[in-house]
């Protein structure tokens, strides 16, 4: 089977974001692979390693040539091939992104489209659902656990709900998004998993061997035009502003004073 994983580059979440006028200043920003997408790559690698049923893991990204760096880091983790769709990744809205992914899906026809549940820059959490809708595929979002059937005909997806885990068996091909818990030591299982198989928590680091091998792996570069996708903008940013800064707190003398302030100043009672 073939797994297609999407990976978006995002500004390093550990960096302080600078706002310039009404937009985020991306100059001098350090970019990383969206953490949830990195988890999806890790989940795909675990599926491949333990099942023996996965022939190829293909990682798809959209962006300028610079994004090759992030794509290469997924290949260094162990993915087999990369696809770079050239486009301006900052300005794409969810609809446009979904159209591109749909077109790539149709070219590649994978058995599983595995995605991070959302990108940590826009936090939209829309693309996977849109893609599934456009392709008329089953979708299972926020996977915290995955278990692949022996014949790779279906995958059982567990997700956290209030009070426990909910499990659903989804026929393949389908669209699955992953949550943080997918990188816990025993979160991904297949028919080939050993009983006590445990992975180190978190996405793996690329070993030097992996990095050297990644140099030789193939990255297909495709333009949006090649895919035949129409890209009119659905969402327009009208302005960006920072939330008002918080003023210092005060100590109240009595309950009466507190109630008075909540009623008359904060107007929450």
């Amino acid at each position, binding site marked *: 089977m073939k797994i297609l994983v999407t990976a978006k580059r995002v500004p390093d979440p550990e960096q302080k974001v600078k706002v310039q006028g009404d937009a985020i200043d991306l100059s001098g920003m350090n970019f990383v692979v969206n953490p949830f997408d990195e988890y999806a790559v890790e989940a795909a690698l675990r599926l491949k390693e333990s099942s023996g049923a996965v022939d190829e893991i293909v990682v798809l990204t959209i962006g300028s040539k610079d994004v090759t*760096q992030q794509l290469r880091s997924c290949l*260094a983790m162990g993915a087999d091939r990369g696809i770079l769709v050239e486009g301006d990744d900052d300005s794409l809205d969810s609809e446009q992104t979904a159209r591109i992914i749909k077109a790539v899906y149709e070219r590649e026809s994978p058995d599983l489209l595995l995605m991070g549940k959302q990108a940590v820059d826009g936090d939209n959490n829309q693309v996977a659902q849109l893609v599934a809708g456009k392709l008329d595929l089953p979708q299972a979002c926020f996977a915290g656990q995955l278990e692949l059937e022996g014949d790779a005909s279906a995958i059982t997806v567990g997700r956290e709900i209030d009070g426990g885990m909910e499990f659903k068996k989804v026929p393949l091909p389908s669209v699955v998004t992953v949550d943080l818990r997918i990188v816990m030591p025993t979160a991904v299982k297949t028919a080939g998993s050993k009983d006590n198989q445990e992975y180190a928590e978190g996405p793996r680091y*690329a*070993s*030097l061997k*992996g*990095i050297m091998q990644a140099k030789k792996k193939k990255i297909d570069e495709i333009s949006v035009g090649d895919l035949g996708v129409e890209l009119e903008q659905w969402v327009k940013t009208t302005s960006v502003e920072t939330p008002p800064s918080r003023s210092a707190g005060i100590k109240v003398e009595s309950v009466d004073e507190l109630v008075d302030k909540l009623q008359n100043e904060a107007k929450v009672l």
Partner: protein
Amino acid sequence: MSQPFTEEHELFRKTVRSFAEKELLPNVDQWEEDELFPDEVFKRAGELGILGAHYPEEHGGGGGDYWFSVAKAEELVRGGSAGVTMGLLVQSDMATPCISDLGSKEQIEEFLKPALAGERIAALGVSEPDAGSDVAGIRTTARRVGDDYIVNGAKTYITNGTRCGFVTLLCKTDPDAGYGGISILLVPSDLPGFTVAKKLKKLGNHASDTAELHLEDVKVPARYLLGQEGQGFYYLMQNFQTERLIAAVSATAGAKLTLDRSVAYGRDRMAFGKPIIKREVWQHRFVDLYTLNEAARALSYDAVSDYNRERYELGREQLSFDVVRKISMAKLFVGDMADRVADECLQFHGGMGYMDECFISRVWRDQRLLRIGGGTSEVMKYLIAKTMGF
């Protein structure tokens, strides 16, 4: 100098940084207290390719150039313990380079490959109770008897010594011959007569174990002789170059981290109504220190660049005196720079800096080794003067 780091170096840097910050840093306080870090750390570093970064692939390495090891050394300091860094660097850049350069096929399979995989811990046995900088004065002897060497003597200040799987051991195969009588043997630690006499307590680098080793009639197969008999001193001088280079690079990165962390502290710490970093007297001192650090980095990188060119581009086995001199200068300069950075940053922290709980007290203890280990500052000056023909 042009930017030496490519995309692959940067990816590798990221891996080492994650390893240092997520797998070392959270544990080093405990390891410092235990005066030992676990053997598994070597294994994990081996898995990630950290130990073999610049070694050829057929030796179990990553097949990279020396800049990979620079990236590695610069990021390992983020683990927050010079002891752990030293233990790992002894494994990767001090006890093993000469095996890659000179080792027989068997020696590479038996010693180098498992060492770079982190499965067999390596130590370098040079110093003795009566000989340190004066390498020619060593007294450990290896007497050839049939197909074996019978080794007798003692080694001290041996990093990784309490739990090493083998020692790259400097010994005299001809006790009367001075420099020309020195050879290197690879000595497995499980041979009868090999004992760890004691674990030594140190001023700093607490997470790293240091031992005194005794060898009494240890029968070492002659096939474990590295290179040729009588050439050990010259081999060691070559081997020292990477040891000094990697120490200089690592300490420069460590000092930069110390400066950054100290300045961050100075932004929060208020005295007489404003953050102490806002005091001009300290601003000027930090400017001096950052400038020194930048100069140290430039000199070290220049030395790495020269080394990289001779070893990897020209493929020379023997380094030129020019390169040896520059590496010695880098180690000397970095030793003084790191000393000043640690001392002034401790002063900047005031009483807090003297407390064990503050990172700077550990840095201050640990960095002192730099002017001693891998050849003292005085030996560096001696070497530099020699190569200048004074």
